[in-house]
């Protein structure tokens, strides 16, 4: 297939520059192979995160030719090799070095989500669930935590509302436990307040970049929004709540 130029971001903590590396490529290669080849032959200290190299661990997220993707799942055939292929770190998180960013915020958010809480088990220590109920949640459980959805979400990327908004990844997680057939926990209030679901205005960028093809917006975020609205903004419920409050604070 010949030679191709990779224009890779090099630098530390926000500062840096693109540097061009020319390397031999062939059809079956993915971008991560090219980056590794460059690392082994030309730039031993080129920082890149990766693990499974099979699209299952979600470590090697980057922006390739302007699109957020997994380096291990982007093949040469999908790229225009006539021009230099840019490879940049994610933009929604603080930059560390070269292609590596600090994604620790995601782990902090996860900790703030109330954990799964099952109902009581059957006598044999197990639970009964129908496959159809399990299937409904399966889609969300496919998430590999690559954080590409977080990277493209304008609430995080452009408005930097990390303190007020959990981001699409965590709404997928919330949907997975909210809709888990055994879960008994109530998280609707904090989905609205702490996790800030209202900031999402359904532009569906997250869905578009998901390598697992999870219907993030349609299947996770919108149903959660509906439940939140149902709880917090239903006029009848508001009236009912007001009555109860009046009675409690009565004479």
């Amino acid at each position, binding site marked *: 297939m010949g030679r191709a130029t990779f224009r890779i971001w090099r630098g530390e903590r926000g500062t840096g520059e693109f540097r061009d590396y020319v390397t031999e490529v062939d059809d079956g*290669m993915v971008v991560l192979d090219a980056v590794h080849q460059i690392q082994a032959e030309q730039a031993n*200290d080129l920082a890149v995160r990766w693990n499974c190299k099979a699209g299952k*661990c979600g*470590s090697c997220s980057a922006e390739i030719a302007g699109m957020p993707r997994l380096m291990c799942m982007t093949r040469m055939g999908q790229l225009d090799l006539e021009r230099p292929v840019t490879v940049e770190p994610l933009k929604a998180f603080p930059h*560390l070095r*070269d292609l590596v960013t600090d994604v620790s915020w995601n782990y902090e958010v996860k900790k703030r989500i109330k*954990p799964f809480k099952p109902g009581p088990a059957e006598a044999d220590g197990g639970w*009964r669930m129908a496959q159809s109920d399990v299937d409904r949640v*399966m889609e969300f459980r496919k998430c590999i935590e690559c954080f590409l959805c977080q990277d493209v979400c304008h609430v995080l990327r452009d408005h930097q509302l990390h303190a007020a908004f959990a981001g699409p990844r965590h709404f997928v997680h919330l949907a997975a436990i909210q809709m888990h057939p055994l879960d008994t926990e109530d998280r609707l209030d904090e989905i609205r307040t702490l996790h800030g679901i209202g900031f999402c205005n359904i532009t569906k960028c997250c869905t578009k970049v998901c390598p697992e093809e999870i219907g993030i917006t349609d299947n996770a975020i919108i149903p959660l929004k509906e439940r939140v609205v149902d709880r917090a903004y239903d006029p009848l419920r508001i009236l009912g709540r007001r009555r109860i409050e009046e009675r409690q604070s009565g004479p």
Partner: protein
Amino acid sequence: MGRLEDLLTERHERHRHDVLVIGAGGAGLRAAIEAAGAGARVGLVCKSLLGKAHTVMAEGGVAAALANVSERDSWRVHFADTMRGGQYLNNARMAELHARESPDRVRELEGWGALFDRTRDGRILQRNFGGHAYPRLAHVGDRTGLEMIRTLQDHGVHRGIDVHMECTVFRLLKDGDRVAGAFVYDRERGRFHVFQANAVVLATGGIGRAFAVTSNSWEYTGDGHALAYQAGAELVDMEFVQFHPTGMVWPPSVRGILVTEGVRGEGGILLNKDGRRFMFDDIPELYRDQTADNEEEGWRYTQGDRQARRPPELLTRDHVARKIVREIKEGRGSPHGGVFLDIAWIRHKLPGAAEHIKRKLPSMYQQFKALADIDITREPMEVGPTTHYAMGGVRVEADSQMSTVPGLFAAGECAGGLHGANRLGGNSLSDLLVFGKRAGEFAARFAGEREQARIDEDQLRRAEREALQPFERQGSAGEGPYAIQHELQDVMQNLVGIVRNEGELRRALGAIGQLRERAGRVAVQGNREYNPGWHAALDLDNLLTVAEAVTRAAIERRESRGAQFREDHPDKDPQYARFNHVIARGADGAMQVQRAPLPGLRDELARIIEELK
């Protein structure tokens, strides 16, 4: 030398825990959860981000005799299957504990939120797998490992565990005979950290990166094996390296990536270039009674017919891998040097087969579509063996998982004993849960019963100096780490692979010695911040240690058994059935291989093995 002295004056960041767990795959997470639950202050150190460890790659399922699909299953049968698979070199007590406890560990996981596929009456569904007599693997499609690690991760983050991500342990620290903690560098800044802990649990996984074709990621450089060895612990069964029969072979850049045994469990068949189903040609004596002798019976087995016997594709991994190698060597392979694995053929048997395949094997469908342009519902895959799993590991006491070094525990792949000469598919995920839990429990107990171990400043200084040496040589004639790593991988692949002989093994040993000398002169460029070249340089020592251990043990085992196949000794030799090879550092610093007699078998267990033979 001035520069290095400057660096040595820096202060280390200090951490104190009761239990330090090294590695955050299934075993490490499970150990950390258990230790924290027992009230210990737990630190967890991992080389990658949380949730990225190789457990995510486990596809087929977790073996547990829940008896949901076949009520004939029980811990006894699971135990007997595990022993048979391991050719009776297993630590029988570990195999017993594993078989007895894994059902509870799986149900417990469900209580923490894991979702498995269901039976019609709503219980956990179980699938067939090589070497297991009954459908035994709890699974969710072909992404069981991801489900497990995410469940443990999400459960673990609420347990007050102190997680240190992207940190690598460089040396274990000792206080006299016992373990005292670890000397660690963080990958991000390259700073050194000192962890003080009375108990350390190694859960670092495997050694796949010592070989050229492997399903393992960069992390699997035998760290736990090497750390334990350096700290004076023993390794056991190191000659047994499992080559998974089905890895991808094309395109070249994905060579080695795993193709789950679940494909064969769902009815996938192996074919050579002439379309012959060659696995029927050679069925080993030990398994003849349990193996189908015609294609129709094999198919019925995969579809749950309980009268049918399993197809030969589901024989043990060592056997299937060798038969594939033979087809390739004798010129009957596929165009890219593998054989064909065909699941698409089931369309002649099942209506809606394409949808069925996508539902049962979604990751495989996606992996081949994305990486090889192959639609597995319509075309066969090309597959060949890939280095997958180390049966050998740190020698531990079965109940507590403690090594011969007081306070040093090991669980999961980096511990040895459970799998003997060969591991059955599905027995790894259950291993992680059962022995991760035990290691965490006993580590917490050990830590609580002892005085705080002391940190020896001399050990810190030595570790620091050794860690920084590759920078010292910057600008010298020393080479970079990658060339040496690649050469070592080629040596192991070509000379210590699926088919071994004495001459090649001895050549490998010589080559490893030369590579070690070169590794001592490695120089790295750049600085300490997130510098993969430096990390690779420090990993070299571990890779060389495990490579030497595998090679030495393989030389000493002059027979073929389980995962070890010696073409110069192609048969089993009964005298080798009586001991394990134990590796330790001798007084002179050289690696020693010794024979340790197998512990006697309790009558009850001996009876089970005899009955179910």
